[in-house]
């Protein structure tokens, strides 16, 4: 992955607008968050292969970045994004990594399902 350049990501996002897409959306502070520090709540959530059709989408911020996608009945939102790539299968991968390189948030869009 490479550090996000907002213009490049916006251009990539634009290619996905109006299409029926598969969504991977995730945030995590690690399965051992509470084990490592009792004052911290272990919090993880993910959706894999949610079917969505974004009506519009924008990347905002000066880094780390935020992405918001408008869908027919609501929104898809991620904050803390730092890195991105279009992978070998044409999937748009956006991720937020902490200082140790650990993934904390991911928002990914694809025209074909993600592997399960």
């Amino acid at each position: 992955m490479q550090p996000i350049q907002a213009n490049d990501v916006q251009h990539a996002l634009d290619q996905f607008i109006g299409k029926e897409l598969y969504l991977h959306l995730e945030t995590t502070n690690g399965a051992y968050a509470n084990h490592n520090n009792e004052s911290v709540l272990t919090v993880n959530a993910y959706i894999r292969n949610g079917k969505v059709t974004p009506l519009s989408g924008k990347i905002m911020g000066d880094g780390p970045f935020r992405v918001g996608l408008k869908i027919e009945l609501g929104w898809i939102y991620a904050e803390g994004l730092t890195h991105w790539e279009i992978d070998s299968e044409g999937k748009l991968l956006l991720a937020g990594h902490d200082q140790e390189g650990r993934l904390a948030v991911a928002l990914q869009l694809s025209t074909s399902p993600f592997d399960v």
Partner: protein
Amino acid sequence: MNDHLLVIFPHPDDEAFGVSGTIAKHTKKGSPVTYICLTLGQMGRNMGNPPFATRESLPLIRQKELEKACAAVGIEDLRQFGLRDKTIEFEDEQFLADEFLTVINEIKPSTIITFYPGYSVHPDHEATGRAVVRAVKSMSESERPELLCVAFARNSEEDLGAPHIVTDVSDVFEEKMNCIKAHRSQTQWLVNSVEKDPGMLEWVQKERFWRYPL
């Protein structure tokens, strides 16, 4: 005497930290080891530092790491169950137990190592341990293998007492470190801390197990 060791864990690298020395000692004396690894750790948050994996490439990378880790400690029989990280507790427990029993009946292990239910922190660890206990409990008492568990929750020693077995694995330290290092996307931090922190070095050279009361 059959001296087949069966190790059952949900994630590639679960074997590395607490059991790979025991595995290496076992294979070094020519005894077989079968490792059932349930998932590819697809949802791990460690991506390397700096990150070299993505959420999508991580399972492919971890597959290769797992194979390398097995080779490092002489595991020749790796069984991958193709399940998904973080979902083990939502699988049917009897289904998992039956899958384990099929392997147990095939290889007739003298010892099984898994996680101690209630004391292994990660929900996948807990669910794996519970299903293994269920499988072994369903066997007739005379046929049951010894069931050894890894526990690392904070209250493990308080509740369970001192580990029943503490194995010095310093004689296979190199093999163990090679197993840990093989899981590069997940273990750089640990390798660094073993090299810097004498307490961690001491911890890695001992492996601790509790017999599960069946």
